[in-house]
């Protein structure tokens, strides 16, 4: 059973190999709008055109052929010229109008082409597809290329690719440039310049006759007050230093309050002693 089935298929295959569709007397011509047939080129199933056919924006390309089954001209059911865009693989069929005698003709101009073809960077490939019902083998051969010549004055046709779900390009946020400092050399130079003013100040005072000659006298007169007073002034600077480095306001205020009270209480005594020296004419 299988054997005879295989034989039958083989026979059918052999029979099919005999009959097939083909086309003959094929030519492509490009006519400008003015009407004159500019170029007419012949092609055949075995000899496709090597040079591309140019199609301008107002031109019409006309393809003529005769469809034949087993060498006899006949009307096929399907006679298309399919034009394919090479970038995306998009294909558009242009059915030929076929008469009963097998003669087929179709005219294509740029306005018949889908807009995606007009934006293609590469030439379009044209093929002829002829097929029909029955056993005859259908034929699909590439025949010529079409090169579109666009009018430079005309606006480029607009085409928006349809929305398709897929991954989108990555975005990385570009951060604002952070705050910048001038070069450290400059900062160091000026910091050192400022810091150098301190010894300049002290040396100038010394040259003007600064001294602490009354220190022993003052300490002799009111030792605790003076020590406490000067100490509390230094302590206040210390509180400011702690505020700068680690403390918050709520830690600073009580301590500053205490130090302030100490300054006031010891200050009355200490400055009183200074007043006494002033009244004694020593200042």
């Amino acid at each position, binding site marked *: 059973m299988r054997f005879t089935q295989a034989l039958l*298929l083989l026979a059918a295959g052999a029979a099919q190999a005999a009959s097939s569709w083909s086309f003959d007397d094929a030519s492509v011509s490009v006519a400008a709008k003015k009407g004159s047939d500019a170029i007419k080129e012949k092609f055949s199933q075995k000899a496709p055109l090597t040079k591309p056919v140019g199609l301008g924006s107002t031109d019409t390309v006309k393809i003529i052929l005769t469809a034949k089954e087993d060498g006899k001209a006949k009307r*096929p*059911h*399907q006679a*298309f010229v*399919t034009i394919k865009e090479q970038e995306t693989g998009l*294909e558009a*069929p242009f*059915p*030929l109008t*076929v008469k009963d005698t097998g003669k087929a003709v*179709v005219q294509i101009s740029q306005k018949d082409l889908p807009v995606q073809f007009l934006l293609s960077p590469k030439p379009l490939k044209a093929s002829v*597809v002829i*097929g*029909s*019902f029955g*056993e005859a083998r*259908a034929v*699909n051969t590439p025949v010529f290329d079409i090169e579109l010549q666009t009018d430079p004055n005309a606006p480029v046709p607009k085409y928006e690719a*349809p*929305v398709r*779900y*897929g*991954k*989108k*390009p*990555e*975005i990385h*946020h570009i*951060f*604002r440039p952070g705050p910048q*400092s*001038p070069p*450290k050399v400059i*900062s160091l130079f*000026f*910091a*050192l310049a*400022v*810091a150098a003013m*301190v010894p300049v100040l002290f040396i100038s*005072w010394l040259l003007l*006759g*600064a*001294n*602490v*000659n*009354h*220190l022993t006298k*003052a300490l002799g007169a009111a030792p605790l007050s*003076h020590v406490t007073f*000067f100490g509390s002034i*230094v302590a206040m*600077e210390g509180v*400011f230093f702690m505020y700068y480095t680690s403390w918050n306001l709520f830690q600073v205020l009580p301590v500053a309050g205490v130090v302030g009270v100490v300054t006031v209480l010891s200050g009355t005594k*200490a400055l009183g002693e*200074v007043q006494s020296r002033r009244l004694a*004419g*020593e*200042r």
Partner: protein
Amino acid sequence: MRTLLSFLLLALASVVAAISTSGNRLLVVLDDVADKATYSKFFADLEEREFKITYETPKSDSLNLFNLGERTYDHVLFLPVHTKGLGPNLTPKTLHDFVNAQGNILLALSANTTTPTSLVSLLSELDITLPTDRNSLVVDHFNYDITSAADRHDVLLLPAPKPVRTGIKDFFSEDAGTKLIAFPRGVGAVLGNGQLLNPILRAPRTAYSYNPKEQAEAVNGDDLFAAGQQLSLVSTFQARNNARVTVVGSAEMLQDKWFDASVTKLGGKPVVQTFNREFAKRVSGWTFQEIGVLKVNWVEHHLEEEGAPNDSNPAMYRVKNNVSYTISLAEFAWDHWIGFNVPEADEVQLEFSMLSPFHRLNLKEESHRLAAVHYHTVFTIPDQHGIFNFMVNYKRPFLSNIEEKNTVPVRHMAHDEWPRSYAISGAWPWIAGIGATVSGFLGFVALWMYSAPVGAGKKVTVKKTQ
């Protein structure tokens, strides 16, 4: 011990829920119950997947898609019927409401029977265009079955379809081998340009659609409906609520005689088996939400800075924090959940956006667990404060939609989060100035209190002036 227990529980759960994610009540609408026999293998496969099938004719009184506002069926399968209309219970509006209520529809058309107007209206609503003359047939003089359609060429033989673009998950061509799909006497449709429509099976480049009554002799230029890959033989539509509508152009490809049949392609291998049974299983599996359904298990984000607490999903972030984001995805595969592996050329992306995305980052597959794959990334929050969203918007053909949005406020730097002035090199001259002032002041106090005047004791006499 704990893992063993949880594994056992999971195994038990997967045994219990061995069906589609969206229910198992299937309604089959056909002409008369005798048709059941021609599709017996297809229905047997469906029943094996635990669908509860109800068979009704369109004009039957007991047919109701809705009852008291709820769907009475989860899925509907339409086989070709010879009546022109589908009756008052299956109006286009009812079918439309059914899809809006997340019901799935599988339509099988045939070139021998006219498609009812309700279905044509429903399909045109979805932007699936059928040939207007209602009798059209898809033929291909290059890819047909020699054994059964040597003359009419109306049984197309196609290889199992690969995805049309890279990055799309391949559900329909796995394990096909050399088997071909037979598409006997079917209708081709033309799909609109929307992103919700995806063809599963497209006609070969040389195929075309024609009307046997009016175009028996030849196909003329103006009357050609469509040809080549513009004809979609099995088309799908997935709504934004994940309801699925599939149009199978040939109901005959679901019949018993084409399941595991032997076919011969012109110019191909002598005898090849058809892939129809497996293909029908996959197409119905996709339509009835058994495959291609995704789920988010959980989302976790936390602060990724040294020395900072990293508790999950904090309520607030700060500008320029480093944040780590992980999402766990699962996919339903026929009867149980497995981890979702994103296809090769595709990425799951995280958008960190306020009004528009500030970051769009590809998530990397980080680890695989039972029924979960973690996708993870670490990034820096932009230097803009405001209310931001972590958004994973993953919508792909043949997969259900994932839209996970977590909103977080992003605050400014607090007053004590700025760098200290001693760390800013431009501030050094000013700090030196403060130091100079303090030391100068202390020196002055000491000098003022304890110094003796130069030229001591000189009395200054005030000269009296007249």
